């Protein structure tokens, strides 16, 4: 079996991640911050240390601004719905995932003004166009870091400058980028970063977070939920300090442990080495696909400018047939269709049919890519 669906969720996970998850339940099994006995404190230590690891990994400058959520969607909803009120203006791009688009379209119906900057067919954005759209008074600019359909990497540093010049906050959807590319929130000027644990960070489903950069005023974000925090238990009002303001209910200890282990694993391997490996594989895929007649490859066609995600279509073939034959006849696992991103497919010109998406991961080998390319060539020509 060759797993090329790491953009949906990474597989396999490093053994260290699996071990950290069972260890968390075995050794730190208390309810963190609730009870004060040794198992509860052990759980709280694990969670706090993971806050520090994440703040460090993304260089956000403040571990208290690391808010654990169940995934990127939850983090994006927290930021978008917590910040935008009727009468506010928000700007986003035309290659966003539905986890950004749907909350925004919902708010648009309720009085938020939404502007969408059109991207080019290869997923790139025209910065001058964006600067014109992000007018002074815009409250929030939301951009994906790397597209989940074509992998295109956005110029986040320049986008941050555009946001800040207009007085807007920048929220970045790093679902695909976190763990795949080095991210420095302070250097790049990212105010809010939404990430998910189960993709390139190599953690388990059900883990993720919103990282608030040091210096960003979190009091302007309304919590999505309120409830038990283990703090200020004498009050019936929800506390306003971080991280409790945005975290209520018993957290996903096992998922958080998996995140810590995933980040530890990536650190040990080195983010530069991870990136180089994935660039090699991406280059191999783009070159290989381009030699198969009848195939159209989407995106920048440049491994330097995208994460390890390549989309293609085949003239006269449905993507679902290709996906099914790759799985059944060759054991090559890919994802076909719209990838929860209709706006992105409209932008690249593959709506409503969608594309076949190949997404190798850290554990994919060049040999596997060679085999997969052979399988694709046979499926396409027979």
């Amino acid at each position, binding site marked *: 079996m060759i797993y090329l669906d790491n953009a949906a969720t990474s597989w396999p996970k490093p053994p260290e991640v699996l071990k950290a998850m069972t260890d968390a339940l075995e050794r730190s099994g208390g309810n*963190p*911050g*609730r*009870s*004060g*006995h040794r198992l*509860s*404190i052990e759980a*709280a*230590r694990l*969670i*706090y*240390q993971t*806050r520090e690891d994440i703040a460090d990994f993304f260089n956000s400058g403040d*571990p*208290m601004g690391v808010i654990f959520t169940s995934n990127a969607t939850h983090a994006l909803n927290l930021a978008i719905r917590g910040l935008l009120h009727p009468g506010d203006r928000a700007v986003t791009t035309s290659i966003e995932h539905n986890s950004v688009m749907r909350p925004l379209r919902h708010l648009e119906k309720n009085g938020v003004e939404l502007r969408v900057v059109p991207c080019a067919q290869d997923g790139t954005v025209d910065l001058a166009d964006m600067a014109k759209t992000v007018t002074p008074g815009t409250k929030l600019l939301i951009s994906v870091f790397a597209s989940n359909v074509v992998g295109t990497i956005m110029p986040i540093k320049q986008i941050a400058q555009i946001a800040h010049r207009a007085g807007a906050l920048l929220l970045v959807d790093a679902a695909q980028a976190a763990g795949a590319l080095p991210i420095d929130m302070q250097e790049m000027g990212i105010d809010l970063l939404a990430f998910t644990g189960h993709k390139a960070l190599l953690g388990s489903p059900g883990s993720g977070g919103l990282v608030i950069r040091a210096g960003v005023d979190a009091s302007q974000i309304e919590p999505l939920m309120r409830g038990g*925090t*283990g*703090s*200020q*238990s*004498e009050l019936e009002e929800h*506390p306003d*300090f*971080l*991280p*409790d303001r945005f975290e209520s209910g018993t957290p996903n200890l096992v998922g958080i442990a998996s995140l810590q282990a995933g980040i530890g694993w990536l650190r040990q391997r080195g983010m530069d080495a991870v990136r180089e490996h994935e660039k090699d594989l991406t280059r191999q895929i783009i070159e290989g696909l381009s030699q198969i007649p009848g195939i159209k490859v989407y995106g920048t066609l440049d491994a330097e400018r995208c994460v390890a995600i390549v989309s293609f279509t085949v003239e006269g073939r449905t993507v679902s047939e290709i996906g099914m034959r790759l799985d059944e006849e060759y054991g090559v696992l890919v994802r076909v269709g719209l990838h929860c991103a209709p706006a992105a497919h409209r932008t690249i010109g593959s709506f409503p049919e969608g594309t076949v998406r190949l997404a190798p991961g850290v554990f994919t080998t060049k040999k596997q890519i060679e085999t997969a390319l052979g399988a694709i060539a046979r499926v396409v020509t027979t």
Partner: protein
Amino acid sequence: MTYGVVLFHTTASAMQAEKVLSKAGLKVKLVPTPRQFSSDCGIALRFDWEQKGQVESLLTSNKVDTAAVRQMEQ
């Protein structure tokens, strides 16, 4: 024995304090917040009262948010 107890708003700060103070070589212990202090957060940090000055200056210089510091006989 006279102890000091640091109270916190949030568990995360208690963990941060423990890390900072242990790293500096101080003997501290996370304990369930003594009820008489009716604090915000369920976990407090106990230290040797004689080290109060050191504890406070380390917490301040590392920007650890605290709710109060109290004295306790045990």
